[in-house]
């Protein structure tokens, strides 16, 4: 805070209108979230290979391999198609999701052993994704209306100057009462998230590293670690081979497409 913050307010006062002076921490938090969202618009479609390393309390590791394709939707949540490669017993399982900001998501899963496409309930936001420390809601598409925002403070972490925001989920069935998000001031990339459970105690800490820039605009973290503060387990999610703008359309994200994923 201090001098920097005062300068910032002064600048705003001079440049815009007197009303800005009255900007509340809620408005500032919302504005920062909006800027974060806006900077990540226009990627159209994306693909990434993901490796999840699950670690239990004793350091024993277990690996998950998945491939994720997403389609950016204007004014709605993204569509996503996830194909599972490992563990081998669930190889070929595919998961299709149409996410929405506040309406329930639409989700289907393909079970290759039964050749069966099943529509599933999307109420399971807080459950573990593939037995990992990532919950479904942690990896779903970010949409502005999903949260209320509060700017808390400025803080330098790992030498990076950040805004710290408080997000409170506005959608149903969240496992969190709130989360604290560190967003760097230069590129608006998430650096760290503290998740608080429904009893308001710290549950998990997510850290983002190995950011790389794609198409001169889109920053993607290649290593995300989720440390559970309550059960001592952790999961590291490595992302690689990002591809964007492959020309995918909504037709590539249909229930029928699940059956032929490999």
């Amino acid at each position, binding site marked *: 805070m201090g001098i920097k913050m005062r300068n910032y307010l002064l600048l705003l006062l001079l440049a815009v209108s007197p009303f800005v002076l009255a900007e509340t921490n809620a408005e500032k938090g919302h504005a920062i979230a909006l800027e974060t969202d806006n900077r990540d618009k226009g990627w159209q479609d994306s693909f990434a290979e993901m490796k999840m390393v699950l670690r239990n309390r004793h350091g024993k590791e277990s690996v998950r391999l998945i491939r994720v394709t997403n389609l950016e939707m204007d004014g709605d949540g993204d569509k996503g198609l996830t194909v599972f490669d490992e563990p081998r*017993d669930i*190889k070929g399982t595919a998961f299709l999701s149409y996410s929405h900001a506040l309406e329930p998501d*639409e989700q289907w899963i393909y079970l290759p052993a039964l050749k069966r496409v*099943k529509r599933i*309930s999307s109420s399971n936001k*807080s*459950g573990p994704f593939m037995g990992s420390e990532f919950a479904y809601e942690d990896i779903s598409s970010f949409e502005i209306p999903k949260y209320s925002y509060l700017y808390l403070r400025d803080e330098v972490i790992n030498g990076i100057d950040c805004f710290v925001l408080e997000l409170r989920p506005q959608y149903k*069935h969240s*496992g969190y009462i709130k989360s604290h998000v560190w967003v760097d001031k230069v590129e608006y990339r998430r650096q760290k998230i503290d998740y608080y459970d429904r009893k308001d105690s710290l549950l998990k800490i997510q850290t983002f590293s190995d950011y790389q820039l794609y198409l001169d605009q889109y920053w993607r973290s290649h290593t995300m670690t989720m440390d559970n503060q309550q059960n001592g387990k952790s999961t590291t999610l490595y992302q690689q081979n990002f591809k964007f703008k492959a020309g995918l359309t909504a037709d590539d994200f249909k229930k029928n497409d699940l059956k032929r994923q*490999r």
Partner: protein
Amino acid sequence: MTLRRMILNANVKLWVKKIAFALLGGLAVPSVLAVELSGYAGAEYRYFLHDSALPFPGQHVPSVVLAPEFYTEWDDGQQSLLFSPFLRLDGEDAERTHGDIGELQWLLVRDDWELRVGVGKVFWGVAESQHLVDVINQTDLVENSDTEDKLGQPMINLSVFRDWGTVDLFVMPYFRERTFAGRDGRLRGPLVVNTDAAAYESGSGRHHLDVAVRWSHSLGDWDIGVSHFYGINREPQLLLNSTATALIPFYETMHQTGLDAQYTVEAWLWKLETIRRETDTDTFFALTGGVEYTFYSVFETDVDVGLIAEYLFDDRDDAPKTAFEDDVLMGARLTWNDTQSTELLFGLIQDLSSEDIGWNIEASRRIGDRWKLSVEGRFFSVNDNTSVLYPVRRDDYFQLELARYF
């Protein structure tokens, strides 16, 4: 076979040939293809709790299974070939020692249509207790008495995608006969089914050209399918042979119209499947309807508990052709959501008129990254001697399977 039907068959066959030649002629297959291998091999042990009432079958049944899958694609993933053979060697029952080609299928993907040619497997429906609507594939009854296992079906399947839904057309030139337990096998009646003596209503026998069409669509919270099938009934009648020493499967020709629908709201899944089946000897209506509700992360753990309740109705009350003419299924699915993907499914089907009950339990857990241990148990409490389940009332069993995935 009527003349009309012969002409129809001939016309469709000609049409199929034309399409196949046009497609195969125009599409070159590259010379070098990377083949991806996956699948599993497993060892299974079944323990039947009681002595069989019959002289031959035993109580301990070991068996092994091999189910590899070979896959290759080319043309930027727009064409692929899938081959999944299956082999089971059973220590007791020669009929359960069997192999199958579950899939041997060429797939061509285009923007708004897909074509599958070869041997394939297709699932239709939404219910858990039984699959009325699902009629494309024959049941591999000897593999598992729960009718969930299927045999590969030779077919040409064209899928067309439109804004108003998906239309699937099926042409099936060759029929697969149902498998039945042999002399030394459990889970059968006192008379063995002589599958070598199968008879058909249609003069073309297993070469009868079956056809099917299905429309399916997702509309908001609704997932709907409507289908019609014309061809050989996958469920044979079992007739006494002339010396009354064995049963002979008799396959009729049928028309079946089916509807399946699921309404998904919050943690509720509302399910309905209904069919009307018409054969020369019988026309009937059957229905499965019910709900599944899931409690997520119960008692502040990661465990999900899903409760399932379904009602099964069949208006064939004149003869014991079905086990499910007025029955209720109640079940629970527990999912631990742990690293080992531990799961447990428990259910019972009760006949409302006779009080007969069938119990079912299935559980599985991954061991390490490549192994999976599965437990299965089926138990019967059957007193009604007119029930189709009466012959298997002493065939309660537990089964343990250890499989390695590759």
